């Protein structure tokens, strides 16, 4: 029974890993550089595993989530800057995810885009209102597993496997190193998006983790995110096999779904669209909650879906307001794919403000007792801190120099 539950959690984590940022950056990276950037995905996935394991452990041992740590370790003033930047990026991401939901619904139904935005908003609000936390995670995680169709598509497209293998070895064969660097930063930013750790750690508290659940935490982080990374590989391989050198830029979510239709026909297209629909809907709820979690944790309000709406009124109001703001933003007709690129790059800038406090708290023995970071977690944590700082400093210059990846 226990193993069964662990397996269910892992399945949900795989489906929940991919969001609109991963879809956009993996497929475009494939379309632009073939399989060359696969190694960057590996680095990003190991990074999110290291830090989500850490903040999941903190949540299980202390009952605290990431923004508690941000407030305690950065103090009020710097913490407030971290909170503000997190909210801005979060709202951009939420807007992009909801736009993605509406696009999928449009491709599936043919109804007008603006009506579908409204429908998407209402459905998301109702689902969050009436469904328990566990089931929210499961519904969207399992639905997102339809994305595995991209793994089948990747194989069916018969890529040159030696070239795929070569992609896992860091190398650069291009006339435009800046664009290469821009995509590398985007892939890392998409894999290590801060909202994932806000949500992951708060989710640990929602599910009332205790030190007994540390094994579950480790399994979820390593296997769930690891296999989520496998989906990212598939997306990039599909992008590389199908779009590279054909002058096609997958600028629409629909063209990403084409990646499954070409090798697998109608059923491939349908599974891809349903998979993308569930993945971005789930990510929309994750970002929606992450915004409310961060604010409530920073200010010390009661929070969490496990408290029921009346048990955490300001938390509930916050996600309600965020949802309305994001719906309004999507209604302006902003292009979700473009917005995704900006959101991923800006989130990369703010990465250190999220990850430094996690590393500090996970090392605090008065907090973590015998569960504090071991040597492996610290060595990896420090290496990734260096990576994050480099990403953070180079993200905006690369955004400008490459003209948002258009070169």
């Amino acid at each position, binding site marked *: 029974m226990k193993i069964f539950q662990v397996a269910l959690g892992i399945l949900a984590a795989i489906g929940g890993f991919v969001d609109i940022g991963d879809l956009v950056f993996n497929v475009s990276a494939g379309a632009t550089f073939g399989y060359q950037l696969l190694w960057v995905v590996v680095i990003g996935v190991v990074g999110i595993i290291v830090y989500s394991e850490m903040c999941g452990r903190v949540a299980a041992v*202390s009952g605290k989530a990431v923004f*508690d740590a941000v407030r*305690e370790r950065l103090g009020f*003033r710097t913490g407030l800057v971290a909170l503000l930047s997190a909210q801005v990026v979060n709202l951009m991401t939420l807007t992009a995810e909801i736009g993605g939901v509406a696009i999928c619904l449009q491709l599936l139904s043919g109804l007008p885009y603006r009506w579908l935005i409204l429908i998407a908003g209402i459905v998301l609000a109702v689902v969050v*209102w009436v469904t328990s936390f566990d089931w929210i995670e499961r519904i969207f995680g399992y639905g997102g597993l339809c994305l595995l169709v991209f793994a089948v598509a990747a194989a069916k497209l018969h890529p040159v496997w030696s070239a795929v293998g070569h992609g896992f070895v860091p190398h650069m064969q291009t006339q435009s190193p800046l664009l290469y660097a821009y995509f590398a930063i985007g892939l890392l930013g998409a894999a290590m998006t801060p909202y994932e750790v806000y949500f992951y750690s708060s989710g640990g508290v929602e599910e009332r983790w205790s030190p007994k659940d540390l094994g579950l935490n480790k399994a979820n982080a390593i296997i769930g995110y690891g296999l989520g990374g496998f989906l990212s590989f598939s997306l990039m391989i599909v992008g590389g096999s199908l779009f590279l050198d054909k002058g096609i830029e997958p600028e629409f979510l629909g063209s990403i779904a084409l990646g499954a239709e070409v090798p697998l026909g109608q059923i491939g297209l349908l599974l891809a669209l349903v998979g993308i629909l569930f993945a971005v809907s789930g990510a929309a709820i994750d970002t929606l909650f992450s915004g409310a979690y961060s604010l409530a944790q920073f200010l010390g309000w009661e929070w969490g879906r496990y408290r029921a709406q009346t048990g*955490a*009124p300001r938390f509930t109001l916050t996600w309600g307001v965020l949802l309305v703001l994001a719906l309004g933003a999507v209604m302006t007709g902003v292009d979700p794919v473009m917005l995704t690129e900006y959101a991923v790059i800006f989130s990369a800038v703010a990465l250190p403000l999220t990850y430094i406090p996690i590393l500090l708290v996970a090392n605090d023995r*008065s907090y973590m007792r015998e569960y504090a970071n071991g040597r492996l977690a610290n060595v990896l944590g420090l290496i990734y801190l260096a990576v994050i700082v480099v990403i953070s400093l180079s993200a905006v210059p690369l955004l400008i120099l490459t003209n948002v990846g258009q070169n």
Partner: protein
Amino acid sequence: MSDSIDLGLRVVDRQLLDSDERRCGKVDDLALEGGPGEELRVAAILSGPDVWPNRGGLLGRLAAWIGGGGRVRVPWNEVAKVDVQVRLKKRAPELGLGRGDDRLRPLIAKIPDADR
């Protein structure tokens, strides 16, 4: 628990939990007492938007304005225990904490199924 505690690291900015384990604010600041030559003593925990300008400068002032002001003073002898949270002896309303949530609750409760 040792008998000394680093107030800046272990108390300020920590979560306040009332006797029902309800989250009811943060330790935004501490009120210290003691005259010249005397030993300093923690008199109270300060919590609420009116404390933020002292902590967060211009941004803190803006946040306090949005937060609507207000400050609650919780005497230090109402603290039951300091671990990773600051645990209080009484329920939040008795100490004047968590009022934002309490005021909003009746409105949220009007929406069907709000207690699920």
